[in-house]
């Protein structure tokens, strides 16, 4: 009887500790999951499954270490094993075009093509893109292939270091750098192409 009560008490303490540590991260994890799955229902399922796994393996969590990184590792692994199989996304990205794309060069061309002075042209591009980027960044991000998208998210949105991302994704730091570099380049090209399609830029 005493043992049972002690175990019950210990379980309650464990539950409380888990909830205090990880439930405040729920909205944040959902946002990341949504960017991974690109679907609200799948994002919820992914987060729910990740929390359940995290609770099961809570005894492996080292107190005092980064709780957000720990549960994000679980979320990422769950996504990769379950959802990647489910949805093998065909890549819509023309990698050759991305390799040849240089945003700075495009900006110079745009400035040169405008009737304004260089300084005025540059200012116009920056002001116009500032509003436009805010509206379309999510759509552009979701068009970035998964492996690059996740690396960019962890770096630019979540603020993890290369080393932390390397540990979360289980890849080398060099691969992290390469994925972030390419992911950002794809994202820039997406945004630039959107702007051209909408006539915001001349796109010479």
């Amino acid at each position, binding site marked *: 009887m005493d043992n049972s009560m002690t175990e019950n008490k210990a379980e309650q303490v464990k539950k409380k500790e888990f909830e205090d540590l990880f439930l405040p991260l*729920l909205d944040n994890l959902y946002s990341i999951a949504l960017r991974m799955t690109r679907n609200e229902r799948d994002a919820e399922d992914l987060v729910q499954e990740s929390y359940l796994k995290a609770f099961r393996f809570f005894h492996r969590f080292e107190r005092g270490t980064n709780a957000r990184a720990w549960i994000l590792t679980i979320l990422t692994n769950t996504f990769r094993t379950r959802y990647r199989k489910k949805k093998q996304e065909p890549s819509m990205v023309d990698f050759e075009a991305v390799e040849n794309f240089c*945003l700075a060069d495009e900006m110079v061309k745009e400035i040169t093509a405008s009737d304004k002075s260089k300084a005025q042209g540059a200012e116009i591009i920056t002001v116009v893109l500032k509003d436009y*980027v805010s509206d379309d960044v999510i759509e552009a991000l979701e068009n970035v292939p998964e492996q690059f998208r996740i690396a960019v998210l962890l770096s630019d949105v979540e603020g993890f270091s290369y080393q932390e991302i390397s540990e979360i994704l289980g890849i080398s730091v060099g691969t992290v750098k390469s994925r972030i570099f390419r992911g950002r380049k794809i994202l820039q090209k997406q945004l630039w192409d959107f702007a051209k399609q909408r006539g915001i830029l001349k796109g010479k």
Partner: protein
Amino acid sequence: MTCEEVFKRLYEALNSGVENLTSEVMAKHYELCQACCQFCRFDAQVIKAMQENCFKDRPISDLRSKILNDIDLQS
């Protein structure tokens, strides 16, 4: 430092910072080079927009309750 060299170091600088000397050289390059300067402003804007927009979404159902229920069943 050429534009190409600046780009190579740019993302390292944005993420984790580069040595002070390199940062100073890069800053001087930005002052002189309009293309790089605009590129950096655009890139910074993209990152800011991602940070602002990625956290707007909230779960459509009562996800918190579902998770708490799962934990109760598990424990």
